[in-house]
């Protein structure tokens, strides 16, 4: 029983650790990604006022693909984890288990799909 409790506590610590890491990623890296894709590119502002576009960010080189993966995966985990948590504070506490299940499902599927696209493009040479 006690070992089981320790296992659960350790799992919670790991999940909250990833959540915090995702918070740092969302705070430091997500703003620049949104700027590049939602402001700079559509409005032809620096640094996309020349020949390059956001696809270069994804496939221009491996570092860009890693940046996209870390930023999107970290932000997705942090955002969903925090959002399902806040829903339990506005009257949905009795659905906590279901919210957690749906939240982790979205995180898992989202990260797998992202890794699949980037991995495929790396293997077939689209990412230089």
């Amino acid at each position, binding site marked *: 029983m006690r070992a089981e409790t320790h296992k659960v506590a350790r799992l919670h610590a790991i999940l909250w650790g990833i959540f915090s890491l995702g918070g740092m990623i969302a705070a*430091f890296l997500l703003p620049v990604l949104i700027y590049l894709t939602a402001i700079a590119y559509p409005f032809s502002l620096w640094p996309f006022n020349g020949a390059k576009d956001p696809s270069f960010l994804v496939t221009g080189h491996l570092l*860009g693909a890693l940046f996209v993966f870390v930023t999107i995966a970290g932000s997705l985990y942090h955002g969903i984890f925090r959002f399902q948590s806040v829903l339990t504070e506005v009257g949905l506490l009795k659905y906590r288990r279901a919210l957690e299940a749906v939240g982790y499902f979205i995180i898992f599927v989202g990260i797998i799909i992202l890794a699949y696209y980037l991995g495929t493009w790396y293997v077939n040479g689209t990412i230089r």
Partner: protein
Amino acid sequence: MGDANRYPELRKRLTPGWWTANRHYAMYMVREWTSLFVALYSLIFIYGLSLWAAGSRADFLNFLKNPAIVGFSLVALVFTMYHAATWFYLLGAISPVKIGRSKTKPWQALVLNLVLLVIISYVAIWLLVLR
């Protein structure tokens, strides 16, 4: 004996509108709801990549230029910046750094991290786009 009798505090269940009781609670709730925009932007970006994977690079680029996506992303950027600012302030409040006899204040962590955010953003653009 039920939980409510053993632990009286459990009787104080939060009502759905508890956060309207004062400004601090309301700001806390706004801060937490910014996470929805962080998550939605991430999912939208993955969807954009799926358009590229299923079609062409132009589909991804057209998707990014869609007015609805641009509009949502601009709102998401505002909320993401709010998330970043509150996260930096929280870091300073949770783990102040001891310098001599005094400890750093949360606003100092906020300013320092905002400067760091600008530097990291510039370095990211230089490394990933300009180089």
